[in-house]
């Protein structure tokens, strides 16, 4: 059988085989553990260890679906440490974890599983609500359970079924409070009396074991920024700070969590009472309000996850563990250390010095599963902090700075892939880099996938599209992978090669995703989306009318709103002729100042454009709106310049008065610039600018001449260049019998200089033409007041000519002395300054 045939055969029955394969891998791990009696004892963590799979001895599964249930869900949950501890035969109903009869367990499981939409299974919702989760994070348990049910359901779980919009509670926009700009009141009421004394041993960046968020930081401003999402100003009892103590018993500092919670609540109440409420402007045309979490969850985007072996969705939002919710055991959970903080809307923000790393034991499943298929994919949603970081390891499965199985990294605006194989070295080199010209890495949220298969080797996809970069090393075998390496995000295992940015999802597959699968996962997006229904029934006089916005958390600081849509939940309604214009988004009783992308919106709901199923979309663009109190507390509403028969006119504030520039006094004279000097000297001497020697000299010194008249910028090098140009012009002047005769009438260049210039009359034959041609004097010989004085210039020139000619009677000396005198004037302030 050819390799291709074998692969196809595998693909046809990938799901069941996959679990057999996993079981085999786990068995191999168990054997490995049994054989390492000489090594140090390994204490199995109850959180991450795979449950013991007991031999099933009951009746055989009645059909393929029961078999799928058995291998996908049941064998993961039947252990006493899992659901089997209670929901066993004769135990608590429903007995879906019973081990005596898989068919009865299957029947019971069907009552609590939703195979069409696994995430909405009662079993998942129950565990997600905190019911006997076997991990520290109920969310992680729910996600893992979802994957198991998804695997059971196989292709029947489409997820992306029609979302049923549910009318939110009707809440009129009421008075609300927003956080003050400064931290002073927070520091006095909450930070100093409660947070610093009782929380700073962990929740401070200078704690011995820092635990984000740093709301007890020594810096009250930093603490304030971190604490706002934990405080509910409108209902202090619902603050996360209070709930964490009162009902979750999180590190209470006395024996009474209730008492500690009361202290916290009193502090928050005092802080909140000091903040005035914001009243909505009664003249505005407003919708009802709701919070993000009161929207309908827009879940069900289809991902291709059939080959998933590790998955990090970073939903936990707190703590120091990023859970592997792939459902493939053992969980390869990552420990966050250093500068790692959680990001709103799921994700972690990694700053230099931070990383998220798994244990080497748990990481073994990567090598085991990937080596058995010979191919894999690293799939990540990342937002690099910048495009100036080099050698920045985003995801690495490695043992050190120079030894790795696989690494995805950032090199400025390029992504880089290193994979160890028999065609590369132990460091995975030579690397595969995306083409520099493509600038593939951007400082924005990107979907980046590295795939590896034995034929093509490495391929990189960015935002669903193959970058086109071919792996010159080609494909090969991964047999040389080292299973003692660890999975790490944000740096090398040594903490070298740090990468700064936000990671919102990481998935590892033991198959090379196809281009279509990559595109599918890219299209599915990342993060939770909600449909927010803003009730406008009373504004348009049609019951159950809403403006629907698709909303999500863009990052820790903003919401992303997209696609405002008019929709009526009553399918029999056919709204028409409803104008909608000038839509603004409000938060907590006031319109938001920045990001109002729907102000220019102007549309009319018409019967022709309206669909009872999808409504009528009003705009296709999205916008970011800054969070104020966090997604649990921010009350969101819409206002309208016009909707139906209601309207509100927004007065345009008058333009501000233009500022008066305050320029300091400057000299009102300046230097002639390069071309001006060229033309000026040409005009004075009569030597054309096209003279070859002048042109040559000018070309070589042009940029050394003054480029600006600003006298402050005039430098010694400028003067040197001016002197060179002056000498060139004067040389050409003196060397031209025609020009020199015209310029220096009566001057005899054939005379010996020493003798000739001993006569002041002859010297004046040089000086006087210079004074007049350089317009130090006017045509009548009268001194021009703003020029250097004739006396000063004459004194300098007399001295110069005398010095150069004394005793010098050689041939050509008179011409040379004249050239020097000419250059002294042309290169002087008389010409340069004006």
């Amino acid at each position, binding site marked *: 059988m050819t390799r291709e045939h074998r692969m196809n055969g595998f693909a046809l029955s990938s799901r069941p085989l996959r679990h057999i394969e996993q079981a085999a891998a786990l068995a191999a791990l168990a054997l490995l553990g049994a054989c390492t009696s000489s090594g140090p004892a390994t204490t199995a963590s109850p959180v991450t260890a795979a449950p013991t799979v007991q031999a099933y001895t009951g009746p055989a599964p009645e059909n393929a679906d029961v078999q799928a249930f058995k291998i996908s869900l049941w064998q993961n949950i039947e252990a006493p440490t899992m659901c089997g501890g209670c929901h066993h035969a004769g135990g608590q109903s429903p007995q879906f974890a019973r081990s005596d009869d898989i068919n009865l367990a299957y029947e019971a499981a069907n009552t609590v599983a939703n195979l069409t939409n696994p995430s909405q299974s009662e079993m998942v919702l129950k565990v997600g609500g905190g019911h006997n989760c076997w991990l520290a994070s109920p969310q992680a348990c729910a996600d893992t359970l979802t994957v198991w049910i998804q695997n059971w359901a196989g292709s029947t779980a489409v997820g992306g079924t029609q979302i049923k919009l549910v009318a939110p509670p009707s809440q009129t926009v009421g008075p609300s409070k927003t956080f003050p700009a400064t931290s002073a009141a927070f520091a006095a009421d909450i930070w100093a009396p409660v947070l610093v004394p009782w929380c700073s041993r962990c929740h401070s960046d200078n704690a011995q074991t820092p635990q984000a968020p740093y709301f007890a930081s020594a810096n009250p401003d930093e603490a304030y920024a971190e604490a706002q999402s934990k405080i509910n100003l409108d209902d202090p009892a619902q603050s996360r700070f209070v709930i964490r103590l009162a009902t979750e018993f999180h590190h209470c500092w006395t024996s009474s969590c209730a008492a500690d919670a009361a202290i916290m609540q009193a502090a928050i109440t005092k802080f909140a009472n000091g903040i005035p409420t914001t009243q909505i402007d009664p003249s505005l045309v407003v919708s009802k309000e709701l919070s993000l979490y009161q929207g309908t969850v827009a879940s069900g985007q289809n991902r291709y996850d059939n080959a998933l072996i590790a998955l990090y969705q970073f939903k936990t939002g707190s703590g120091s563990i990023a859970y592997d919710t792939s459902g493939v055991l053992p969980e390869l959970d990552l420990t966050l250390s250093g500068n790692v903080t959680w990001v709103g809307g799921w*994700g972690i923000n990694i700053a230099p010095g931070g990383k998220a790393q798994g244990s080497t034991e748990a990481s073994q499943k990567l090598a085991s599963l990937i080596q058995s298929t010979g191919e894999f994919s690293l799939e990540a949603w990342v937002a690099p*902090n910048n495009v100036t970081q080099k050698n920045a390891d985003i995801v690495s499965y490695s043992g050190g700075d120079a030894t790795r199985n696989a690494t995805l990294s950032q090199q400025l605006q390029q992504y880089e892939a290193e994979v160890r194989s028999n065609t590369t070295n132990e460091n995975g080199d030579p690397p595969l880099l995306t083409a520099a010209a493509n600038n593939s890495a*951007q400082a*924005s*949220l990107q979907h980046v996938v590295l795939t590896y298969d034995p034929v093509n080797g490495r391929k990189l996809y960015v935002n669903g599209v193959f970058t086109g970069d071919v792996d010159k090393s080609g494909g090969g075998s991964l047999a040389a992978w080292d299973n003692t390496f660890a999975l790490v995000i944000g740096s090398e295992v040594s903490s070298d090669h740090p990468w700064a940015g936000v990671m919102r999802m990481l998935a590892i597959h033991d198959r090379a995703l196809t281009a279509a699968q990559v595109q599918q996962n890219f299209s599915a997006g990342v993060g939770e989306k909600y449909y927010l229904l803003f009730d406008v029934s009373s504004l348009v006089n049609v019951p159950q009318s809403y403006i629907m916005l698709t909303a999500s958390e863009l990052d*820790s600081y*903003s919401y992303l709103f997209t*696609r405002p849509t008019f929709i009526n939940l009553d399918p029999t309604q056919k709204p028409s002729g409803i104008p909608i214009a000038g839509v603004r988004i409000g938060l907590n009783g006031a319109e938001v100042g*920045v*990001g*109002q*992308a729907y*102000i*220019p919106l102007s549309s009319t709901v018409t019967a022709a454009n309206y669909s009872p199923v999808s409504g009528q979309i009003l705009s296709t*663009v*999205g*916008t970011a709106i*800054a969070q104020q109190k966090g997604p649990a507390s921010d009350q969101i509403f819409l206002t309208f310049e016009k909707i139906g028969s209601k309207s509100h006119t927004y007065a345009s504030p008058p333009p*501000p*008065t233009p500022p008066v520039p305050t*320029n*300091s*006094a*400057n*000299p*009102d*004279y300046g230097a002639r*610039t390069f071309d001006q000097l060229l033309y*000026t000297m040409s*005009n*004075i001497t009569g030597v*054309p600018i096209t003279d070859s020697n002048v042109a040559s000299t000018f070309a070589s010194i042009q*940029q050394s001449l003054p480029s600006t*008249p600003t006298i402050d910028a005039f430098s010694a090098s400028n003067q040197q260049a001016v002197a060179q140009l*002056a*000498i060139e012009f004067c040389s050409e002047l*003196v*060397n031209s019998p025609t020009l020199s005769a015209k310029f220096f009438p009566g001057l005899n260049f054939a005379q010996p200089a020493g003798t000739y210039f001993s006569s002041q009359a002859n010297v004046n034959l040089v000086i006087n033409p210079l004074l007049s041609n350089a*317009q130090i004097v*006017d*045509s009548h010989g009268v001194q021009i*007041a*703003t020029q*250097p*004085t004739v006396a*000063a210039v004459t004194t*300098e*020139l007399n001295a*110069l000519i005398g010095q*150069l000619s004394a005793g010098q009677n050689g041939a*050509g000396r008179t011409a*040379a*002395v004249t050239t*020097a005198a000419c250059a*002294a004037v042309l*290169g002087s*302030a*008389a010409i340069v*300054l*004006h």
Partner: protein
Amino acid sequence: MRIASKLKPALPRRAARAAASASCAVLLLAGPATPAFADPTSQAQRIYERIAGVDPPDATLTTMVADITGGNALAAAELATSDPSFYNVVLKNFVTPWTNRNQTVFAPLNDYTATVIGMVRDDVAFNTVLSADILYKSNASGLPAVSAANNNHYATAEQNGVDLKATLVATTQSAAYGLPSAATAGVMTTRGGSSAFFINGTNRAMFRFTLINHLCTDLNPIMDITRPPDRVRQDVSRSPGGDSRIFLNNCIGCHAAMDPMAQAFAYYNFDGVTTQETLYTPGVVQAKYLINSQNFNQGFITPDDSWSNRWRQGPNQVLGWSASLPGSGSGAKSLGQELAGSSAFAQCQVQKVFQAVCFRAPQNQADRAQISTMVSGFTGGGYKLKQVFAESAVYCMGP
């Protein structure tokens, strides 16, 4: 053979050094040591030098002195604007930095610069500089023909020291380059403008540098984060590096207004690789407007070259937009009219001339009043930039 070459072994190096040092010595005696208490001759000389960059011929100086003495300094200044150096030197160096991204004055003469020089010479209304179907070329002999594919005509004219005042003749871009007349937009669509600001990138450079050069402001000083961001393109991340505060506090301040205006250039590109020509694709948006679409997939997708001026509301109303224009349109020509119709445009041109002639920015109330007077005269008198040079030179001719 040059005589100086023959003298080299004997003297020139020493003479040159002596000359240079003498120059420095004379320089120290001049300038600030000589107070600017001017007489009509000094005033005439300064007017001429500031306008033409060279000294006046004796006869001209005499005439100018008479004009000034007779109380008509403006006539003296207008005389100075007839010197060829005003065009070949002062205007050329005044305009050249506008025509390249480095804003350097050391760039070859091109059609952008030549067109401005021609418009000034002919007193063409300068508020058409961003919208007219206009081009100036030299009719001097020995020059290559004007070409859409190279700058040889203008570069050669400069090398040959061609008298621009005497040889520039008006033509149109549509005739010379084959660009549709409706697609011409003054200096923005000259080859010089296009090759500098339509090349590569996203065409936002054309908008930004037009602002810098013709409204005298970069984007940062007029950031307004309150404008609606509905037309900010997809290539602008709303969460750069995962932090949307950067977008909401900075990026949006420029992009919210720049992107809807730079949309006017959606059909333009400059091929700097093969043809070296401006590409104009009416009805087809250039690919550069659609790149990096996944940076913010929900951003604006440019469908055409319609533009909208969002600065007509908010604090940037102070730029003084014309009430007689609609504030929106399609294509570069109407955008050019919008920009050149603002009071900031007129203010900018006058202020640039003032600074070029007086060697300083307006620094006191008298200067600002003079600027205001000249702006009124400029806008009310047919946007004649030459007149502004003359008026500025008179104002700064000294007491």
